[in-house]
């Protein structure tokens, strides 16, 4: 059985944003922190939520899911350069995802939902730009690994 449809799309997002100009390494959700001196810049890509809004009376039902993906650009720097770095990372991701990604043989469009920033001082200033993208994905209820 293939991966869940929301994972197929997540992986397509990861592929699309790998190798962008920032040189950021792309990760799934991580348990342990990225090390400021050696592992940044980086992107985290994960599914934040998945909701079904279909009202299908057929069996198996057509699941109409709105999946919310978060792409977190993480970087560290000195002085005030971190702000520019994170904005550049946000720009390259938005541009990269402006066209549909291909997942499970289907074209899936991602809708940009905005972003938030967070910064914190340390030996290097670390910051994150948390970008939200939403995708409308369809699948048959009995095959959550196949996009319809």
């Amino acid at each position, binding site marked *: 059985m293939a991966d869940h449809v929301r994972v197929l799309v997540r992986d397509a997002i990861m592929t699309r944003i790998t190798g962008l100009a920032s040189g950021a390494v792309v990760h799934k959700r991580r348990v342990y922190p990225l090390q400021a001196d050696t592992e940044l810049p980086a992107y985290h890509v994960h599914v934040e939520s998945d909701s079904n809004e279909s009202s299908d009376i057929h069996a198996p039902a057509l699941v109409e899911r709105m999946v919310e993906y978060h792409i977190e650009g993480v970087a560290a720097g000195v002085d005030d350069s971190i702000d520019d770095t994170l904005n550049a990372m946000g720009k390259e991701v938005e541009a990269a995802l402006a066209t549909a990604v291909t997942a499970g043989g289907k074209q899936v469009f991602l809708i940009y939902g905005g972003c938030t920033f967070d910064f914190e001082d340390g030996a290097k*200033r670390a910051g994150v730009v948390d970008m939200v993208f939403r995708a409308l994905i369809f699948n048959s209820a009995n095959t959550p690994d196949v996009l319809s």
Partner: protein
Amino acid sequence: MYSEDLAVFFTLKENGGLAEPGVYDGATVAVLFDAAYLEQVDGMVGNTEPAATGMASIFLVSAVGKTLAIDGVTYRIRTREPQDDGATVLMRLEKT
């Protein structure tokens, strides 16, 4: 009358104390240095939080923005926070 002897407080490790030698404004000065582990931005980044305590008579208000080198690493002094009676200051550091 009580008078502070800060020289004792800032005795270098090599002489049995707790202080490190640092280079500040072209001179070698004694500071108490700490670089504890720090998790930043909701635990996404692992880093350190370097800080040094020094004599307020050496690290004047104008110290903020200047560099302090400790053990071969150069830091920029980001804050100067007087401690207790003001004879010492805690400085938050950032790598240059």
